[in-house]
C-alpha cells in the first residue's frame, strides 16, 4: 500500500466515528482497497485520455476511433464516484439528448462530442478544443478524487448505481450511439460494480449466503454472455448483440440492480 492510501484509510476511519461506526468499522478495509482501485482506474484514465485526445488533435481519425472505447472503460468502472462531481461528470460524459438542441448544442462536449465527430462526421475538424477540455476535466477529476475521503454509502451504493446506469440508459444501445461500442462500457460498469461487491463480500458470506450466491451467479451470467462478444482486447459492435442475449443481460442487470440496492442496508449503512 502506498503511503497516500494509508493516509486515506486513516482519514476514513476518523470520518467513520459517527453513530454508524460500529456497523461500518468493518468497511474500513474494503473502502481503503476500493480507494486504491479508483486511483488505479483514474491513473489509467488520465494516461489513456492523453493518448486519445492527442490522436484527435493530430487529426488521426483511425487511432482516435481505436482508442475511444478502451479509454472510456476506466471511467465507466468508477462512474458513481465520478458522479460525486456532477459538473465534471456532465462535462466528461453527457449525451446529446441531455440538451434541448442535441448535437447542435454548444454545451454538448466531452467523450460523446468527440465520438459524434469521429463517427457521425468522420472528421476531427473543430474537435481540438473539445479534446483539450476533456483532458483538463479528466485531470481535475483525478485530483479531486485523490483528495477525497470516499463516503462509505456512496461506495457501497455504487455497486447498484452502476447497474441502474446500465439498466436505464445502456441496455438500449443509446449511450455510444455513433460508435456502437456500448459493450465496452457495459464491461466497465460491470467490473466496477463487481469490484465493490467482491470487496464487501466477506462481510456477508456467512449471514447472507443465499444473497451472495445469487448476486455472484448473476455476475457470472453477465460474464458468460459478454464473453461471447469478445473481439481481441475489446468487444464487437452493439449491433451484434442478439435479441436473446440482450434480454438475458437486461434481466441480469435488473436483478443485480434490485439485489444490490439492498447492499447498503445489509451492511448497516444509511
Amino acid at each position: 500500500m502506498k503511503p497516500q492510501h494509508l493516509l486515506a484509510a486513516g482519514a476514513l476511519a476518523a470520518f467513520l466515528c459517527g453513530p454508524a461506526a460500529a456497523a461500518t468499522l468493518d468497511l474500513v478495509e474494503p473502502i481503503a482497497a476500493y480507494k486504491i482501485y479508483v486511483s488505479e482506474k483514474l491513473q489509467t484514465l488520465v494516461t489513456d485520455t492523453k493518448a486519445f485526445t492527442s490522436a484527435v488533435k493530430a487529426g488521426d481519425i483511425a487511432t482516435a476511433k481505436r482508442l475511444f472505447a478502451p479509454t472510456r472503460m476506466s471511467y465507466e468502472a468508477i462512474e458513481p464516484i465520478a458522479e460525486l462531481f456532477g459538473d465534471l461528470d456532465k462535462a466528461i460524459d453527457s449525451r446529446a439528448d441531455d440538451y434541448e438542441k442535441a448535437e447542435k448544442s454548444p454545451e454538448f462536449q466531452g467523450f460523446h462530442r468527440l465520438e459524434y465527430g469521429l463517427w457521425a462526421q468522420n472528421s476531427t475538424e473543430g474537435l481540438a478544443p473539445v479534446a483539450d477540455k476533456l483532458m483538463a476535466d479528466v485531470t481535475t477529476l483525478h485530483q479531486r478524487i485523490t483528495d477525497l475521503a470516499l463516503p462509505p454509502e456512496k461506495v457501497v451504493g455504487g455497486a447498484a448505481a452502476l447497474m441502474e446506469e446500465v439498466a436505464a440508459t445502456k441496455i438500449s444501445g443509446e449511450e455510444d450511439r455513433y460508435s456502437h461500442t456500448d459493450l465496452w462500457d457495459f464491461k466497465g460498469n460491470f467490473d466496477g460494480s463487481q469490484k465493490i461487491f467482491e470487496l464487501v463480500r466477506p462481510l456477508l458470506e456467512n449471514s447472507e449466503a443465499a444473497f451472495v450466491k445469487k448476486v455472484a451467479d448473476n455476475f457470472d451470467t453477465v460474464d458468460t454472455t459478454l464473453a461471447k462478444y469478445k473481439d481481441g482486447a475489446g468487444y464487437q459492435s452493439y449491433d451484434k448483440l442478439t435479441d436473446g442475449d440482450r434480454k438475458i443481460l437486461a434481466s441480469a442487470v435488473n436483478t443485480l440492480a434490485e439485489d444490490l440496492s439492498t447492499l447498503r442496508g445489509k451492511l448497516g449503512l444509511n
Partner: protein
Amino acid sequence: MMSRSDDPSASRSNRRRQFLIGMSAAATGALAAAPAHAETAPTQRHVTDAPNAHASAQARWPFYGKHQQGITTPRPAAGMVAAFDVIATTPDALEAMFRALSARLAFLTQGGMPPELDPKLPPADSGILGPVIEPDNLTATVSLGNALFADRDWLRPLKPRRLQRMTRFSNDALEARLCHGDLLLQFCANRPDTTIHALRDIVKMMPDTLVLRWKQEGTVPVLPAAAKGRAESARNFLGFHDGSANPDAGDAKLMQRVVWVGEGDDEPRWAVRGSYQAVRIIRNFVERWDRTPLREQEHIFGRRKASGAPFDGRTEFDVPDYARDPDGRVTPLDAHIRLANPRTPSTARNLMLRRPFNYSNGVNKAGQLDMGLLFICYQADLEAGFITVQKRLNGEPLEEYLKPVGGGYFYVLPGAESADDYLGRTLIEAARAAPSPT
C-alpha cells in the same frame, strides 16, 4: 405538535385494523369461488357496460377459479396490458416463474399489507397506494405469446393449435417495439394507480425472469349507476358506444362456446379452460374524425351516435335485421358492425368477446393527438374469431380513421383453482410428461 389525526403511526394502525376487518368479511364472501361481489355496480352486467363511478376500493374479485379473472369480469374504468420476455429455459425455471407470479397476483388482487422492512433497506412496496394495498377491483390475467413456445424445443409441441405470431393486416403499420412478447399481463382496476402499482410490483419482484417489453394503458368513461335497467356501454374515443352487441358474459353456456377452450376442442389438453386473446393498439385519427359529417360517421359504423341504436332499432341493445335489408339500404353493407358480424348462420362461429379500453398517449410529431383504442378480444378459436373478422373488416370505410400500430396474439392460461394451484400448472405438467426432444 402533531395533532392526533396527523400522527402517521396512529392512522396507519387504524387503517390496518380496518383492513383486517375487511379481510375477515371478505374471507367468508368474495374470497370464495362464487363471484359474491356485492360492491360492484349491480347494473353493470355486460363486460363492456360503463363502469360505476362509485366502485369501491375494497371490492375484490376472486383470484382462484376455473377460468382466469379479467375476461368475463365486468370491465372497470382502468386497464393496462404489459408484455414481457420470459427468461426461463427449463421447465423448472418456468414453473418457478409461474408460481412466483401467481403468488404475487393472488396477493395484489386480494390486497393486504406489505411487510415492513428495516428502513435502511428499500421498502418492500412502492407505496403509491399507501401503507395498505386495497384490491380496488384489480384483476390480473396472464397469457402466453407464440414466441414463448417457438423459442423452446420442449414447449413447441404444446403450443395451442391456433397460436401464432401476429402478422400485418392491410391497414396496419406495426411498430416492432409495440408488438408481441412471451407473456402478457392484463391489469384492470377502478383506478389507474392500482394497475400501475401492480405492474411496478411485478417489475420489482420478478426481474430475474420477466423483462418488460412494452405496455399500453387505457380507460373507459365511468357513469353514475343507472337508476334502473341496464347501464349503457361505455363510449370510445370516436364518440360511439362500444360493446353494445357483445355476447352476454353472464351467460356461462354462451361463454363456454364463444370464449373458453373446452374438452372437445382440438387443442392440447393442458389448454382447456383457457382462451385466445387478441390485443391491438389501434390509433384513431381523431382530428379527422371530428371533421367528418355526423351522417357519414354513423354510416361508417352502422349505428346512431347519440343512442348507439342500429338504424332499424331504438336502443343500442336492439338487434339489426339484415335479412330484411339485403341491399344495405338501411345499414350499409360495408358498415363496421355489418362486416364485423353479418349475423348469418355461418358467421355465428366468428363471435368474440370484446373488452377494449380507450388510450391517450400524448402528441405525435405532426402535432396530432396520439389516441385510440386498446382493442382486446377473447375467443375459443383465434382464427374463426379475431383473424376472420379482421379479414372481413380489411378495407372497411372506418380504416381511413384508424392505424393499428401494435399488439399481439396470446393464449390465456386456464385458471388456478386454489391456493395450492398456480397459473401454468397444466402446461408445466404436460411439458414434463412429454418425451423430451433430444
